[in-house]
């Protein structure tokens, strides 16, 4: 069973399409989407319809803070430009799309795997896993051996052995990492629709349950087109620039 883990798609159709195609090529047969499907990007309708289809076929999809904002919850918690995108998005959503977002859970557990959007200690609070301290806090309260977490836009892998000391590792795209059963792991696949580590290529990860191998991926996509759409939608120009540069 190969699980594709995608998060922070942020209404970026081009990036999402490229990652879905890449995952299919690499044998993904199960999909987990860790939230933040809308905001920042110009294609919320297409992204949500695609997710609705996947969930109908058994995929897991969680709620992110931008999704909560899009259905009127969590008011006043987003920054100005993010709020501007949500205000643009909200009237565009259909009844079905809004209902889909409203039904999303904040976390899901599957055997040794925990899926959360923000963190494992208080998913509804949407605090970030900025570094080893927060990663450790999340791993210590989790029952699951492996936590997959969105919300942070940069890919990162944390692990904790017996002395409960937390270490971080910047993953190398395409290199499978065996997640040793003797320790706890917390993986941030990085953002599909708005990477911020200086590389505009979309981020996601695959996990093979049988072999315990986790692979981080970088998928190049037509980010110039996605950036053009952001400008055409009238969003703040720095959001388009972010897609072009990856935040460098």
């Amino acid at each position, binding site marked *: 069973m190969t699980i594709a883990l995608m998060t922070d798609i942020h209404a970026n159709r081009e990036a999402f399409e490229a990652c879905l195609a890449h995952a299919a090529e690499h044998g993904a047969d199960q999909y987990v989407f860790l939230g933040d499907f809308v905001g920042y990007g110009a294609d919320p309708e297409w992204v949500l319809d695609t997710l609705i289809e996947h969930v109908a076929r058994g995929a897991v999809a969680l709620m992110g803070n931008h999704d909560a904002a899009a259905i009127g919850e969590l008011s006043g918690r987003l920054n100005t430009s993010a709020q501007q995108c949500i205000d643009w998005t909200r009237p565009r959503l259909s009844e079905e799309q809004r209902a889909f977002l409203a039904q999303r859970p904040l976390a899901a557990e599957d055997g040794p795997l925990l899926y959360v959007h923000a963190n494992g200690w208080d998913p509804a609070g949407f605090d970030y896993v900025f570094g080893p301290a927060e990663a450790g806090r999340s791993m210590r309260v989790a029952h699951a051996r492996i936590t997959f977490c969105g919300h942070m836009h940069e890919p990162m892998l944390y692990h904790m052995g017996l*002395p409960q*000391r937390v*270490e971080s*590792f910047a993953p*190398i795209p395409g*290199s499978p990492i*065996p997640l040793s*059963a003797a320790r706890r792991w917390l993986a941030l696949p990085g953002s599909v629709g708005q990477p911020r580590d200086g590389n505009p290529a979309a981020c996601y990860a695959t996990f093979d349950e049988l072999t315990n191998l986790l692979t981080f991926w970088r998928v190049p996509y037509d980010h110039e087109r996605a950036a053009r759409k952001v400008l055409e939608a009238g969003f703040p120009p720095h959001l388009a620039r972010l897609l072009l540069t990856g935040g460098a």
Partner: protein
Amino acid sequence: MERLRPPQVGQQIDGYELTQFVHRGGMATLWRVARPDLTLAAVMKVPSIQDDPTAIVGFEVEQMVMPLLGGPHVPRFVAAGGFDAQPYIVMEYIDGASLRPKLDQSPLPVAEIATLGAAVAEALHDLHQQHVIHLDLKPSNVLFRAGGQAVLVDFGLARHERLPDLLAEEFRLPLGTGPYISPEQVLHVRDDPRSDLFALGAILYHLATGRRAFGTPASVRALRQRLFRAPTPPRALNPDCPPWLQEVILHCLEVEAERRYGSAAQVAFDLAHPDSVALTARAQCTGDLPLAQRLRRWGRSIGAMPVRRNVTQQLLRAPIVVAAVDLSQEWEALADALRATVRRVLQSEPDARLACVSVLKTNRIGLDTPTDEAGRNRHVQRLVQLQHWARSLALPPERATYHVLEAPDPAEAIIDYARSNRVDHIVIGCRGSSGLRRYLGSVSTKVVAEAPCSVTVVKVPRAETLAAEASA
């Protein structure tokens, strides 16, 4: 240290039946195992210590790294498991002795040291190319297959550069084995492949002299001595050790990784070509460093921070490049173009070694006895021409070697040479494209098709070819 109750013959672990006790190491025991689905002779490695964090994490590291390794120089991985109760690794059983007993027979004959050393260097290079540094290379961790190929075992301290380093910050003591640990490992650096070359140097030193290069240090303070003390030169202990071997050993044992060989393949190359080893001050020295130099090194060793470079970066910097040089007359224009290309390749790769190779064609049938006067003259003449060709590259002697091969088929000779010396890149000339050559197939065409590495084919620019034809 609490020891686990050792397993026993006849015991079943995850369906594997322990059939025979094989070996007891410091941290683990080895058992022959049987299971109906096993397709090869296999052993199970079981840790014997329960409460030493280095041993526990080391076993975890080995369980992580071994499944990713392949090739003849590591035992084939079969299975790992028992994470909750009794951890284990099942792997191929290597039916051969380790290098350890050779220490008791040392000093060994020079030819045997060269053969053993080259086999270990070849295994190391193979490991490094798989992004892994061993970091605990010592005679007991080297086994030999029946054919003489070296197999590296025990990856408990290994570093895979594409995986999280579970041992990185966990421990305050340097990780390694006292007599073999490199200076940078003493300083907690775990990502330089040249650390393994230092350990290889320490092994060669022992085989050549019968003594350990740095004794058996028991404290961190004693370990730190190798940051500023040079070992007694091998020739001072064993006058039978030739200067070239001392050169190779001390080149491996340089304190600063930057001053060691660039890759294990380069060490193997020198061990296989003693006549081509460029002798420097290392080959000549007979005692410890002068006091002033020792003091300087000691001063530098305080707060020393080694240059950091990972496996991939280091191997890319240190390729073995072959310039396949044809020196027949019609070839002159091409010689310049070839040299220009070789210069570019070497400029971008600062630790590269250049092997200039030229093939003397012999008859397929009959004997071109190389021992007769004429044959020897031809050989020497070609060698001199080869050195002349390379002169304007102005390479320091230790970066270039010259080889005249005698063979009926030049392409085959070059391909064989590249294979047996783990060459990374061949630069070869191609003399245009006459109809006849297309029909018969040129040397460069065959080299491109069959060489085990990258090949750059150099042609003379068309304008120059036309000018040459016009003036002829």
